[in-house]
């Protein structure tokens, strides 16, 4: 037999969801909708704290097992407490906090972004091997055309014709395709939301 708490969970979720949804269409409920969304944001902040504690515990376990990569878990712990310490003492907008962000977070993320460019080039070549076919050739051919139309070629400079082709591809073809995909995404999102509102999907346990 299921716990009564699961039923209460479901009831709270469904009623809250319905009030927020109706609040978008009925102006009289807009105030309650705003209030509930503010509560959701506050709860999300607490969930973030829970998530961070969970992350630290997972890495503490990894350190305890002294297995491959355990040193990175130690680095994560040290970096976490240094960051918390600096931001607590200096404030989130303080020069030391910003410096910490500028000299560590931004360079690391920029490096990963650069790595991503190489990774995508490799993935495109792998795609030719994995799914060689008309659509794969069109996909890669289009990507090359857009690249050539975007970046000037060494020693040649910009080729205006390729620039025009690129503008047409990104302004007409890709926009039309993207709208078709977004239509499917929007309908899927509505269907998923309705299933949660009807209590069919219960990601909150039950």
């Amino acid at each position, binding site marked *: 037999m299921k716990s009564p708490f699961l039923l209460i969970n479901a009831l709270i979720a469904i009623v809250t969801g319905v009030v927020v*949804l109706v609040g*978008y*269409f*009925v*102006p009289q409920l807009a105030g309650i909708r705003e209030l509930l*969304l503010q509560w959701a944001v506050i*709860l*999300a902040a*607490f*969930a*973030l704290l*829970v*998530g*961070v504690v*969970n*992350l630290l*515990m*997972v890495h503490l376990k990894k350190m305890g097992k002294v297995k*491959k*990569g355990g040193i*990175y878990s130690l680095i994560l712990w040290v970096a976490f407490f240094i960051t918390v310490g600096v931001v607590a003492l200096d404030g989130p907008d303080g020069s030391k906090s910003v410096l910490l962000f500028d000299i560590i*977070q931004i360079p*690391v*993320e920029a490096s*990963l*972004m650069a*790595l*991503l460019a190489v*990774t*995508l080039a490799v*993935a*495109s070549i*792998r*795609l030719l091997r*994995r799914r060689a076919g008309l659509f794969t050739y069109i*996909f890669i051919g289009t990507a090359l055309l857009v690249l050539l139309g975007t970046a000037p070629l060494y020693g040649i400079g910009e080729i205006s014709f390729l620039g025009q082709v690129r503008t047409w591809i990104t302004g007409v073809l890709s926009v039309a395709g*993207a709208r*078709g*995909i977004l*239509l*499917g*995404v929007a*309908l*899927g*999102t*509505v*269907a*998923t*939301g*309705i*299933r*949660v509102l*009807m209590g*069919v*999907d*219960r*990601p*909150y*346990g*039950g």
Partner: protein
Amino acid sequence: MNWLEAIGSVMGIIFILVFVGLMVLFFATGRGRTVRNLRDIPAYTRLRRSVGLAVEAGTRVHVSLGRGGLVGLPAGSALVGLSILDRISRAASSSDRPPVATSGEGVLAVLSQDVMRTAYRNVNTEEQYDPGAGRLSGLTPFSYVAGAIPVILDEQVSTNVLVGNFGSEVGLLTEASEQKESLTVAGTDQISGQAVLVAAAQEPLIGEEVYAGGAYLGAGAFHVASLRAQDVLRWVLIAVILLGAFAKLVGLL
């Protein structure tokens, strides 16, 4: 509220009510038929087989839920990811290595733990539940990816399911999966992420295919009914768009 906003609100309510009505109608009329009449989506066929193989081989399934929270448009794909996590947790509950979930948002991390615990409880294997299996791996796009890559590389993962809100950074996750020669089934609600996945994922899910996960993984007749309702309304919207374009062409709009 001006009259244009009022018309918009009424249309919105009608759209939602029609959607609900169609879902209930298809649920009532199609309960015994389940997925037999749905078109084949190879990604889900391979995923089902791969989860079974992972259980037999004692390897792990990794579900990555992206960075979408539950407030806003990304919530849809995040909820689908949780629904897929539920199905996989049930299917792999008897495995020596239960599934692991990573996410880039606090609420999703907490919900992933809750979903796994509920799934194990429902199949009477709650002792298998490990809170560490639902992890927050990072809060910015690249820190999230950097946190999820070690899971793919070091935790004997044979199948990666990436369903949620991802940008182009998802390419690094698929590359890590390629290095380990594990299966990647991936879909996102972001256009940039989808473009990357078409090239980089072994089994990409495009557009609405992401949202069909529950129906194809046996989450119940209501999921199949909602899929059918989506199909009907998509054709209605296509008709409205074409009529609008025609009306504009002949000068009626």
